[in-house]
């Protein structure tokens, strides 16, 4: 059990750092795809399609085994955060883009009528409204992220899955070990779900107040 908890802490660390990177990449890629000059737009589309079109495990292996051959050595933890963050970020970019595009047409027109610059319009009017629409799909993506952290065990990081395999081999208590691990993952996923639901409630409350006032 303490061994499993140690693994769970590493799993949580990778999840949190991966999530931060994913949100960051998603915002940049979405804004670049929507408003960037043509080459930047192509670049962000390429990033999104490559990371959505190939398997997360392939990306993990590519960063871990192929980059060193080009002289870039990253330790396994950094590779894990990078690969998972970039992977989920690519999916997130489409979520962000969808949310920005779905903000009511009139809001854009009103901002133009008020003579706002594009940066002002995005920061003050569009993004706050898009943010509310983004929360539920981001919740799903974070759950995906929690689940894909189990892949890092395959590049020998001692996360929850890795500890489980180790314990299975040393104790041969297969059924309790794997059942316990499934329950720990379930607990982590449920925590994320509940946190996102609270965030959703707070965000939509703010929006309604804004509309009434």
């Amino acid at each position, binding site marked *: 059990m303490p061994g499993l908890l140690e693994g769970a802490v590493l799993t949580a660390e990778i999840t949190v750092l991966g999530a931060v990177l994913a949100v960051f990449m998603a915002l940049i890629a979405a804004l670049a795809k929507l408003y960037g000059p043509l080459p930047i737009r192509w670049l962000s589309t390429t990033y999104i*399609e490559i990371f959505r079109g*190939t*398997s997360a495990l392939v990306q993990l292996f590519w960063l871990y085994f192929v980059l060193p*051959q080009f002289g870039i050595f990253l330790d396994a933890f950094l590779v894990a955060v990078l690969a998972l963050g970039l992977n989920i970020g690519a999916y997130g970019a489409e979520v962000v883009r969808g949310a920005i595009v779905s903000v009511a047409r009139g809001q854009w027109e009103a901002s133009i009528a008020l003579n706002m610059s594009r940066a002002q319009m995005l920061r003050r009017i569009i993004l706050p409204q898009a943010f509310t629409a983004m929360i539920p799909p981001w919740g799903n993506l974070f759950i995906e992220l929690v689940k894909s952290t189990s892949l890092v065990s395959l590049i020998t990081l001692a996360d929850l*899955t890795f500890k489980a*395999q180790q314990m299975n081999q040393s104790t041969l208590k297969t059924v309790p070990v794997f059942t316990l691990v*499934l329950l720990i993952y379930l607990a982590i996923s449920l925590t994320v779900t509940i946190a996102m639901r609270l965030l959703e409630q707070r965000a939509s409350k703010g929006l309604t107040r804004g509309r009434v006032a």
Partner: protein
Amino acid sequence: MWDWTFTFEILPVLARAAIMTVEATALGFVIAATLGLVLASIRLAFPTAGVVVTVLVELIRSTPLLIQIFFLYFVLPKAGIVLDAFTAGVAAIGVHYAAYCSEVYRAGFENVPRGQWEASIALNLSPWNTFKDIILPQALPPVVPALGNYLIALFKETPLLSAIAVLELMQTAKNIGSETFRYTEPVTLVGVFFLVMSLVSAGIVRILESWLQRR
């Protein structure tokens, strides 16, 4: 950096492994699509048993597929069921995606207007006939695009089978890598293969979608 001779040397080996990947995808999806439909139907027909299905679906959806593969591969033999790695892996992938597909089917069922059920009762159709002849034909076509997305997602998860040493693409690439100490070509080729297949499948799903809409 990139060795073309080596690339052409390993290409046939990887192509053979690609067939294994496609097989695993096809079998896994057949399990997912049928089992998903069964799960959704149980929920529809028996609300009490439906609670069990709901809990099961949530449990499967919120835990990692890799752990589920290990679970089937290591735990089932304890119960006297010994599966070879390929079968265990494909079954795990199939069951995992069945949980997602069952939600898709459920949405499809909820889309069929209430009046269709009432009309079937008025026509004195048995519940089974209502389900088979009236509800299913209306519920299925709208969910095809969503199922298509899960087919692509399932395909991209097949490299996980390499964790239990099934000789699919990823495992083959790893083997080549550990024999020749060259990972650049094999791992990149696997990535390219997945990218091409995903883009092609996404295109096919889109065409199917617009074809269904036009009907």
